[in-house]
């Protein structure tokens, strides 16, 4: 047993897969000799060689395109976006090429695109985004977003082993803030497509993922203390495909649902989840589905404004109180 940070758990997961399977490659800007902007791949080039840990030009389309070709040839490449905001530069190749390759040409494309997402770090509009909604709409992709160190490790390993392209959105705020003791003698694999109940409660359910899990848990504790409310918190972990079964089960258990995400409101993943609840469990609702999200603006540089725009614990508390009183 050893205590590892979220970032170390991710690093260990990557290293284990590289050691286990020599088809696993890493590509990205500064991932090699520098060890990555956040040092996720520190020491990898020395350990696995420059042929498997490849420094690339600053060209996200080229990174993903190269990886797609390698994947077709039997490799299992992992692309790092230095900040996940720049995955938008690879939007076309991911949605037009990678996501459709199996359908168009019967080509397996087992690649992973990963990178640091999310705010709360004063990163401003180019270094704080949560791009999941932009890809949720693309059949052929899978999207995961770990909140815990265990899942950081378990989901990167599952993503690398998956036969289809997986987008892995890690949260930079959690990198060194989340620590967890993980067993060393057990292989940690988190199944893609399975949510997890992070906290039991009977009064209402919060559906969330990534960094918002921790804010939701904090809100739930506060509500238990101050209001006597028992709030269930569900960590979705995988956003595509969504775990409908877990979502419907939560609705049937508590009949009141709050969706919390860090991404902006309009067109966000919460809208899709709400629609599914309407389709699958309308008669089990005792209140409208409510969502707590970022305001619909580019994320400001100013710390006070960033705090205002992004969901905070108090916003979640207020949302829960509204739902509970409905």
């Amino acid at each position, binding site marked *: 047993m050893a205590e590892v940070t979220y970032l170390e758990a991710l690093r260990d997961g990557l290293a284990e897969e590289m050691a286990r399977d020599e088809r696993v490659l890493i590509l990205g800007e500064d991932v090699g000799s520098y060890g990555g902007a956040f040092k996720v791949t520190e020491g990898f080039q020395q350990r696995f060689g420059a042929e498997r840990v490849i420094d690339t030009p600053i060209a996200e389309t080229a990174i993903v395109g190269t990886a797609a070709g390698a994947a077709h040839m039997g490799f299992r490449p992992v692309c790092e976006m230095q900040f996940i905001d720049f995955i938008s530069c690879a939007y076309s190749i991911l949605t037009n090429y990678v996501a459709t390759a199996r359908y168009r040409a019967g080509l397996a494309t087992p690649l992973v695109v990963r990178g640091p997402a999310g705010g709360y770090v004063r990163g401003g509009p180019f270094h704080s985004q949560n791009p999941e909604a932009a890809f949720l709409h693309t059949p052929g992709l899978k999207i995961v977003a770990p909140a815990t160190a265990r899942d950081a490790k378990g989901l990167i390993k599952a993503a690398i082993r998956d036969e289809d392209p997986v987008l892995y959105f890690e949260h930079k705020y959690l990198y060194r803030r989340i620590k967890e003791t993980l067993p060393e003698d057990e292989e940690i694999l988190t199944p893609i497509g399975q949510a997890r109940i992070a906290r039991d409660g009977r009064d209402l359910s919060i559906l969330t993922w990534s960094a918002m899990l921790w804010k939701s848990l904090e809100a739930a504790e506060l509500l238990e203390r101050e209001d006597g409310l028992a709030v269930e918190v569900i960590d979705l972990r995988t956003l595509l495909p969504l775990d409908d079964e877990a979502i419907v089960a939560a609705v049937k258990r508590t*009949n009141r649902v709050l969706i919390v995400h860090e991404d902006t409101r309009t067109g966000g993943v919460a809208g899709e989840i709400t629609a599914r609840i309407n389709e699958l469990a309308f*008669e*089990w609702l005792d209140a409208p589905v409510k969502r707590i999200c970022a305001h619909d603006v580019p994320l400001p540089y100013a710390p006070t404004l960033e705090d205002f725009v992004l969901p905070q614990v108090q916003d979640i508390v207020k949302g829960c109180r509204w739902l*509970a009183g409905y």
Partner: protein
Amino acid sequence: MARIDVVMPQMGESIAEGTLSKWLKRVGDPVKRDEPIFEISTDKVDAEIPAPAAGVLAEILVQEGQTVAVQTVVARLETDAGAAAASAAPKPATSAPAPAPSAGQAPDSERAAAVVPAPAPSPSPGAKVAAPPAAPKPAPAAATAPAAESLEDRLRRKSTPLVRKIAADHNLDLTAIPGSGMAGRVTKNDILAYLESGLAAPAPAPADGPVTRPTDRPAVPDLTVGPGVRVVPGPVVEPWEGDRVEPWSRIRKLTADHMVMSRRVSAHVQSLIEVDYSRIATLRAKRKADYAERGVHLTFLAFIASAVARNLRKHPVLNAAVMGENTLYRREVNLGIAVAMDWGLIVPVIRRADELNLLGIARAINDLAERARAKKLSPDEVQKGTFTITNPGVFGTFVGLPVLNQPQSGILAVGAIGKRPAVLTGPDGSDSIAIRTQGMLALSFDHRIVDGADADRFLADLRATLQEFPEESI
């Protein structure tokens, strides 16, 4: 000009009133939506109450320090939007009902739209509790709903999909259920509490009424969970080859739910007593023909019902119900008589049974049983029972131990009546064995309000009445 009401909010399920502690705005002050306009204190919480809409504080109806019932209108707001609309397009006075206060809060208009504070946690045993709430709680929405609101609108505002489903499954009238949610909305907890309270007497299954939707999932499988109660799921049952699956009828479902609910909410205890019916057997044999001439079948059950009705007057705790943390003593003695039908069980009620003589009771029993089997009972003939008698003895059963018919505090089962050897002690103290007509009576009672001594005194008095049944009253 649109004026909307600002009401005393309900700050918790058991809170019936609140004290307006301070006005934060004066008449004429402009207020923004969600801006605190007054402070309240209840026995559970103190809170600032936000404005349900933007506007100008037009009237203050409750002064600082005054305590009023929840949903009482404490102020009126002149809304900007309303005033603007009125000047732009004047409408006839009869139209344009004002929006229901606080019901217009769009849930998603902003993420900090906390309008009504969450219900406070239940009071701990030592906590100060308000005086018993006036019961039954008035439907709070009625106080503030605009007069023009139709029943349909009100239903729509007062229910959510889940609540409507539960109401449909149990054939309940939502408008009759007090709501604790925002704007008096009936929540899941409200409707479940209502079902548990037993106020929802099951309506008889109409002969050719609407067919219930066959459903393969229980209506409310995991909702009836109280705090600290561990839910043990029922067994998973699967049909084997050749088995027959019959979806529940409405009456089956109502019975099933009611029985499980009853077992859960009441502390069932049973006492049994043996009664010597020899005197009644004689009286019955003597008068049976007279009764038959009047079209009435004189049964042992009629004697028992008559004796029960009389004794319930003397033992009111068995003609009672539990209402919250109160005992509700019923003024009327309304005897339910369980009637087994081929398709289920129903309990028609003899209203004011203590005011009927034996003939009246015998006739009522005959009549209700006949009409129950002919599906000709009206809904009010199965409601408002205060005590129930069931008669498993007709099948020869020695006695049965019945489940309480909620919310009643007692139910009597009549065992088979027949000739048995009994030891009699003569005036001289000598014992002899005689053939006597005897039978058992079993009383199930709710130990929450009925103690063993209460129940046993009732049974002893009942036996005495039966064994010394006055001939002149026949």
